[in-house]
């Protein structure tokens, strides 16, 4: 049976240990042959099944990583297809590069739950487990969708939309002319389109560059700082970032919105989100901030709860503590320089989490906080949303595919092909870009034709 070939990172993306890239499908062997160089220069596809081999992964001439490759020929594999597993040594970055290389040589990013789906459809998984398979597919996809859309920055999604609308406009122009040749003429249009397509390609290339340096999707541990108004959340963020960013005043409720900063703690990337204080409020602007804070809290990998020990616990604190249960959290007893009205034992009555005495103002206890986070990460207590890395790779792949399609448009123009051929590859590019922002094609083209071009009897 011929299937397309899928690839994904099969392990959790943490900075510790090894990462595994898994490939499955009828081209798995030919792909690995192109990028894996063994010591004896033999082809791994010619080796016996269920053997493990040492060597290096190359993208062309560039060395990516020193790896072990596990070979499993069909049907004796999880998916019952030819399967390759690449054990990489390097950290997150290297695992990503290996996956990207695999994709470049012909695999496509696996959909969430797709390995399991294939295993099931190929009869590898017991029928009685069908329900759990369906559940895995469902939940992984929901999760991926959520993370993809929530992590994609507004600026990027605006750019993608802008490029897409340019492309669909050109397709609609071609199609309206083909549909109604006596009304709309496209003679000599190729030259104009050539310029436009080149502009679009360079715009996508900028996006592609950004996808590498983290501007595209935020990778890392999503850390949310919560606490009552004026508990010292903003001061803490400023201390961690090392610059005055949040507005710090003594008036309760000054951080109206949420603030985000990316912090690198010895290689562990934290996306720190400072939220408005949680408290019942009638102020509309602040209400929005508070709602958003609660939303961020739900999506957090790690919660830092700042308690103002110079005041007593109240309704707001109880509400926050309720939300901390079953979550990874650190409680900071702030303003330890002032006379305490609330103590660790007061809090312990409600929630049992790691507690640290700090004074954000005097910079006391900050080192201990950093060490605690590091410890939690390396012990695997907190990990981050892997899906973000995967989504990032998927997006990058889509950008590359769309550029490929646009180059085919340029080639069609250069070859002097008739105009109707241009729209085939323009449409492919449009579709690929749509996957980034979670939009399919549907009736976009027909709508564009009717709204922008006047045709008809």
């Amino acid at each position, binding site marked *: 049976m011929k299937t397309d070939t899928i690839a994904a990172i099969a392990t959790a993306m943490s900075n510790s240990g090894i990462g595994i890239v898994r490939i499955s499908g009828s081209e798995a062997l030919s792909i690995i042959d192109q990028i894996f160089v063994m010591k004896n220069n033999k082809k791994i596809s010619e080796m016996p099944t269920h053997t493990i081999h040492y060597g290096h992964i190359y993208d062309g001439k560039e060395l990516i990583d020193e790896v072990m490759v596990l070979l499993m020929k069909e049907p004796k594999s999880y998916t019952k297809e030819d399967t390759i597993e690449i054990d990489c040594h390097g950290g997150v970055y290297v695992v990503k590069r290996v996956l990207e290389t695999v994709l470049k040589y012909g695999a496509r990013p696996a*959909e*969430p*739950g*797709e390995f399991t*789906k294939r295993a*099931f*459809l190929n009869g590898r998984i017991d*029928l009685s487990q*069908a*329900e759990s*398979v*369906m*559940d895995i*597919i*469902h*939940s992984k*996809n*929901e999760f991926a969708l959520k993370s993809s859309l929530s992590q994609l920055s507004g600026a990027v999604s605006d750019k993608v939309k802008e490029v897409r609308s340019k492309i669909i406009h050109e*397709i609609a122009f071609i*199609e309206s002319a*083909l*549909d*109604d*040749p*006596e*009304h709309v003429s496209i*003679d000599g249009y190729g030259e104009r389109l050539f310029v436009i397509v080149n502009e679009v390609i360079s715009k996508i290339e900028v996006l592609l560059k950004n996808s590498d340096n983290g501007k595209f999707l935020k990778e890392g541990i999503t850390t949310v700082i919560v606490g009552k108004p004026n508990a010292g959340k903003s001061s803490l963020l400023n201390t961690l970032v090392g610059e005055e960013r949040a507005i710090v005043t003594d008036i309760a409720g000054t951080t109206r919105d949420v603030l985000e900063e990316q912090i690198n703690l010895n290689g562990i990337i934290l996306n720190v989100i400072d939220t408005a204080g949680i408290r019942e409020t009638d102020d509309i602007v602040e209400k929005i901030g508070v709602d958003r804070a609660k939303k961020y809290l739900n999506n957090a990998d790690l919660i830092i709860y700042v308690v103002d020990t110079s005041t007593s616990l109240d309704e707001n604190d109880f509400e926050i503590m309720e939300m901390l249960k079953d979550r990874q959290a650190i409680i900071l007893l702030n303003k330890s320089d002032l006379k305490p009205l609330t103590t660790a034992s007061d809090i312990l009555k409600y929630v049992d989490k790691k507690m640290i005495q700090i004074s954000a103002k005097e910079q006391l206890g900050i080192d201990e906080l950093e060490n605690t986070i590091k410890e939690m990460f390396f012990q695997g207590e907190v990990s981050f949303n892997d899906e973000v890395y995967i989504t990032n790779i998927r997006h990058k792949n889509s950008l590359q595919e769309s550029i490929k399609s646009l180059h085919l448009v340029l080639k069609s123009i250069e*070859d*002097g*092909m*008739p*105009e*109707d*051929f241009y*729209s*085939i590859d323009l449409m492919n590019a449009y579709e690929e870009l749509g996957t980034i922002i979670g939009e*399919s094609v*549907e*009736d976009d*083209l*027909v709508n564009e*034709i*009717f*709204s922008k071009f*006047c*045709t*008809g*009897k």
Partner: protein
Amino acid sequence: MNRNLLEETYDVAVVGAGHAGCEAALAAARLGLETIIFTVSVDSIALMPCNPNIGGSSKGHLVREIDALGGEMGKNIDKTFIQSKMLNKSKGPAVHSLRAQADKMNYTMEMRKTLQNTDHLTIRQAEVSEILTEEYKTEGVFEKRILGLRTYSGATYHCKAVILCTGTYLRARCLTGELITHTGPNGLQAANYLTDSLVENGIEMLRFKTGTPARIDKRSIDFSKMQEQKGDERVVPFSFTTNPEDVQIDQVSCWLTYTNEKTHEIIRNNLDRSPLYAGIIEGTGPRYCPSIEDKVVKFADKDRHQIFIEPEGLNTNEMYVGGMSSSLPEDVQHEMYRTLPGLENVKIVRNAYAIEYDCINPNQLYATLEFKKIKGLFAGGQFNGSSGYEEAACQGLMAGINASMEVLGREQVVLDRSQAYIGVLIDDLVTKENKEPYRMMTSRAEYRLLLRQDNADLRLSKIGYEIGLISKERYDWVCEKEVLIQKEMERVSEERIGANKEVQALLESYDSIPLNTGVTLAELIRRPELDYEKLAPIDKNRPELPYDVVEQVNINIKYDGYITRQIKLVENFKKLEKKRIPEDINYDEVPSLRIEARQKLKLYHPISIGQASRISGVSPADVSVLLVYMEQMKHTS
């Protein structure tokens, strides 16, 4: 209660004798079934109440496909056209499209003759007012099936299958400004009762709208102020059975003129008298054929619009004003038409008008065009929410074929999106949300490079032959043609052309780069500036071949790369189409489907995984879940 005792029995009954009804009835009768076709007026069989053309971009494809399956439209227009053009000739072969001006009266007459001379076919002038159904129990569940029809006069017709092709006649209402008449097109009688009976049977109705421009008197037109639009010098017939020599006739011209600022001003000043803008129109109109008032409002930046003046036939003075459909009052119509160069003194014969009518939400149909809820009840044409003569005809043909297959106990025929424009059209209708009258467009066909008008016979004759609407003789020729094409493609791929003087001279004459070494003939054909025919002088071993074989060889070689890519896409598409969803699937029992997907799947009841994946609101993850569930079902049942 009507006490009419007239009772008759037929195999198949067709309601409506427009373009859909005619094809449906002919298909059923030709397959040997006793068929009756109802019309409110026998004089309006295959009437063309709007534009006087058959074909056009993508619609020409439909006519070719109808012909390849054994339908009548192509043959009928070949007998009655008065001008013909191949559109988009300078573009790729996928978008070449035939369009002919018809002699409307003659078109109607010829189709009527064909119907009258077909065995097993009865024509009956009567208004059908009721469908007769019954509930029956099968495998423990109650289902509904068709029993027959009743006419307004009370007569009962028992039959095994009914095909509804009521076009724009159901509760039709015509609007010209403030003037509203409760008639069908051209002042014909509307059908006011059938809707109630359909609703009683649980069918969901929609209300759509369309419009037509005025017809004007030829003698009142000054053609010297317009540009003449002639037909092609060499006419290509629509039907694969028509001898090309028979269609080389004297053609009639169309004429081009333009609206201007004055026209637009009159329209803008009278918008309050347009039923569309006054909110009187209830139906949803098509965006692709906007009325002139729509064009002026929506495209305010355009200072003129093209208007085509087209003859309606050889025995009438009437001319069609293409591009200026309207529902403005007749005094405004007079004023606005008279602003156009050449129409300063024009006399209107028939007013422009908008028409509203009842149709169905086509998501109630299977891709066979049978109602999901009523066995034996089929539907085709504008009744299904489409628009256009060709769109109607092809649905009528497929509904006629499938009703017949059901009566005969044979397997039904569904064309998929990779086989035909007809497949794309019907799949769109039954799978996608349809908010306006649906018109075919080449951009709706994702595999359009393969679905060309020139290869419709190669794509579909086999199916037409298996159905029984294409003769053995005709099918044998298509098979022979296939072999000839294959052989010649192999030959040109192997034939070496050396870099000799004669070759270089020929290349030079077409501004083509001279050869360094020998190449195959196929490589030269692929050059944009060359083609199969141009290379004849240097192709010494070329066999004598018919033109339609040569055409296929040229296209297949020239666009080989693109065609191969689309064939690959089709292979993937077919895989999902082949995965049939069991009819008795209960979507409430499929765990992990998202709510929206579950609702949509229950509503549409797709027949295949492929169709399910095209329903908006069904995500790839839902499709995966469905696949897993089906696998489980297969093993546990």
